[in-house]
């Protein structure tokens, strides 16, 4: 289940194929930052999901609960993956980054 910050980071690592800490290709810091950025981006697209919700400060890979309706939680993971892969300069990674960011928006605004 996606509930805590650590759940989101773990799932993003699965999609990024970055599960072995030897060390990680994408640091906790960068993934947590991407998660923190994803919430206001989601709020911009779907303000209704944040009615009576205060977005917490997400600063570490810990047990902080991420306030997101369960129907839309995977969209945040897609955003994290997209932002992470934007860092890479290989052409394949650019395409994956664009695909993840498009999936983030599609998940929030369409039946997909």
């Amino acid at each position, binding site marked *: 289940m996606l509930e805590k910050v650590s759940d989101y980071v773990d799932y993003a690592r699965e999609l990024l194929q970055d599960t072995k800490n030897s060390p990680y290709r994408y640091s906790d810091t960068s993934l947590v930052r991407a998660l923190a950025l994803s919430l206001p981006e989601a709020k911009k*697209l*779907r303000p*209704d*999901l944040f*009615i*009576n919700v205060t977005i917490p400060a997400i600063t570490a890979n810990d047990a902080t609960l991420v306030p997101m*309706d369960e*129907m*839309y939680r995977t969209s945040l993971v897609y955003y994290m993956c997209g932002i992470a892969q934007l860092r890479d300069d290989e052409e394949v990674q650019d395409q994956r980054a664009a695909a993840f960011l498009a999936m983030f928006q599609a998940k929030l*605004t*369409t*039946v*997909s």
Partner: protein
Amino acid sequence: MAAADITRLMNNARLRLTGATDAVLQQELFAVMDEFFKKSNVWNEDIEVEIAGGAPAGTIYQLAPAAPALIDKLLWVFQKPDSPTIGRGPGVNAAMSTPGELTLQLQPSSDVVYIVTVALTVADPLDRSGYVQFPAWVLAKYRETILDGLLGRMMTQPSKPYSNSQMAVFHMRKFVQATASARVEWTRNNTYRAQAWAFPGGFSSGTQRGGRSGWGGPA
């Protein structure tokens, strides 16, 4: 509201609105009920007001509904009859330029009790589950109308999985028509083949003279 009725309404809305959250449905339900009550007048309350004799002209009498609700319109004012077998006393000319503030055209010279009938609409606070509060019979009687209003308003929201401008027009049209029917039913006291008028209260207990039209409204 009855829990079963609101659960049925929400489930009907959820299965037609893919991806909608309960918080948004509750938010829009408030707006739907507000529009429904303001346009149909079906939610009424009689409020007794004690009028002291000889008060200066323009005296304002504050009205407060018993339930959590907002006064939308003044419907009519009658004097409280002395006899318990008479439903209404003579009619009284009054106005409410600010909702909840009653003013009389003529101040009575002696103490009297008036029964003020007002049309209500929804107001905060919500109940503990976050639902707008209104009488249970309204949802039981007008559940399809309320559902149409809810679906219509939800589908007009832009860039949502459930956005659908064509269906929004369809549902809003049904909602508006059904709300107008509810208003007509209310004027006929929900009585089949009833006349759209009633004898004024003054007919049984006093005189019809004094410039009143004879319209008595739902008894």
